[in-house]
């Protein structure tokens, strides 16, 4: 047990190092540019909209995309590469169990995702801070250094929106969603060896996962007549996670009240789902001949 945990940690650290040395962090530059472009875009043209909502939407979409890229490519490139380049033979000739390999790879990717999400969140917070300062300065300038009652209200709203602590929850939700996508990608990586195939399958699950709720309703409602349609709905409802559930982050971006007690069950759902999927991956991999 102690050895297993140590092995998992060592493999995770190796996976993380590999990704970092492949210079994946350069992807962050793209995100920086996105944030910079986004905030200067709304400052320059009078957006006549909720500036902070736009910035948050942009940041969350950016984090989702970059995270998805990291998760998909990480799992779909690194795991098949171990098999293809036969480094896994060396690894498994040591007293290392296959599940330790799978768990180590996964946790290494989770560590990578955590780093990415944290760094992107940092960049995002700086952008928010900058924009809040700019808007407040504009109000101050307009009022000649003193704020009217309405302006004070407005500045207060800017502050509340820019420094909303619930954004941590939204980031946690994105992170959990990305971790779940990663484990699904790991599962596909244990059965297939083509990166394109693995990525396509995972993306398919990702998209269908956003419709899973509808499939579930129909499946439980039992209103569908055709048997093949029923089987399809059952498969979607039973096998695919409900990704829409993570969109509670939309509520947070909209500035509506969401508490940790609302977020925690979703994080727990993602955690248990990831654990089950990881176990399934390990079982599949255990049975696979290399």
């Amino acid at each position, binding site marked *: 047990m102690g*050895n297993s945990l140590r092995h998992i940690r060592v493999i995770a650290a*190796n996976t993380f190092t590999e990704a970092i040395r492949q210079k994946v962090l350069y992807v962050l530059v793209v995100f920086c540019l996105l944030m910079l472009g986004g905030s200067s875009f709304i400052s320059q043209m009078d957006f006549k909209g909720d500036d902070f909502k736009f910035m948050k939407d942009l940041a969350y979409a950016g984090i989702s995309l970059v995270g998805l890229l990291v998760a998909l490519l990480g799992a779909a490139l690194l795991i098949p590469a171990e098999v293809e380049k036969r480094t896994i033979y*060396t*690894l*498994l*000739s040591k007293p290392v*169990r296959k599940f330790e390999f799978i768990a180590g790879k996964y946790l290494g990717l989770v560590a990578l995702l955590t780093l990415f999400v944290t760094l992107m969140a940092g960049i995002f917070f700086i952008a928010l801070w900058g924009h809040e300062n700019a808007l407040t300065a504009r109000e101050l300038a307009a009022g000649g250094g003193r704020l009217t009652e309405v302006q004070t209200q407005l500045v207060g709203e800017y502050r509340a929106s820019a420094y909303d602590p619930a954004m941590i929850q939204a980031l946690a939700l994105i992170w959990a969603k990305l971790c779940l996508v990663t484990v699904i990608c790991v599962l596909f990586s244990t059965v297939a060896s083509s990166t394109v195939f693995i990525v396509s399958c995972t993306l398919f699950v990702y998209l269908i996962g956003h419709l899973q709720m509808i499939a579930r309703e129909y499946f439980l409602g039992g209103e569908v007549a055709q048997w093949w349609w029923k089987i399809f709905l059952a498969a979607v409802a039973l096998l695919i996670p409900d990704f829409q559930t993570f969109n509670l982050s939309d509520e947070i971006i909209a500035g509506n009240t969401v508490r940790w007690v609302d977020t925690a069950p979703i994080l727990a759902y993602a955690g248990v789902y990831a654990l089950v999927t990881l176990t399934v991956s390990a079982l599949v991999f255990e049975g696979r001949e*290399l």
Partner: protein
Amino acid sequence: MSDDGQREFAVSAAGLTKTFTLEWTRKRLLALDGLELRVRRGEVFGLLGPNGSGKSTTMKMLLGLIKPSAGTVSVFGAAAGSLAARRRLGFLPENPYFPGFLSGREVLNYYGKLVNLHGQRLRARVDELLELVSLTAAADRALKTYSKGMLQRIGLAQALLHDPDLLLLDEPTAGVDPVGSRQMRDLILALRARGKTVIFSSHLLEQVQEVADRVLILHRGKKVREGTLEELLSVRGQSQLTVSGLTPELQTRLSAWLRGEGAELLAAAPPQQKLEDYFIKAVGQ
């Protein structure tokens, strides 16, 4: 050595068979057919055969990477692939490829931790092995800058990390230059001197000849020969003499005399130096 037959052998396999089912056509492919294999402790054992003869399949089954379709295989009495078995063997894969982003030292540290070495012991062991495979100078360079021979040596070093009793070397000299090849051979002999069991596969027969105590020849998944090199290679009823100062005239007389004694001179030619030896001498090693 106990009386228990299992204990005497580092590896024993009985009726080892492997069939692969091709994924789409569902055709069955017999990769290994009823192999009997016993490798004694302390032996250097060569597994010979052309490509596709079943060498790699045998190796993989010894490692437990694939399961036999029929038959059994054990390593020091433990089921092949079990943790107990893997704790006692080291493996050098064919054309070893290691994470190129790591340096030689890092890759040994990585694998060292996976065989449960850590701290001071790990550091000491890594230094020792780098020295053994003469890579101390290149230890901190990234593996992607290593030559084929260097990779082979770092591969051997990682196989030796936990000081295993059995070494499995898959084509250890494939694609390696003669100097590297000779180093590998010397290392194998050094390991034998320390009582290790070595099983290696090769299709380069000459190299096998120099180190193997016993060889097994595989062809299309079946054992065709097995034995010591002496048993397999000596030509019965013939002997070889090496003479200096043999003039053509003397040769005629010798030939006539031999015929008179009921023997016959079959061949006479100056003995050829082996090109490998010549080469090694030429490059000053």
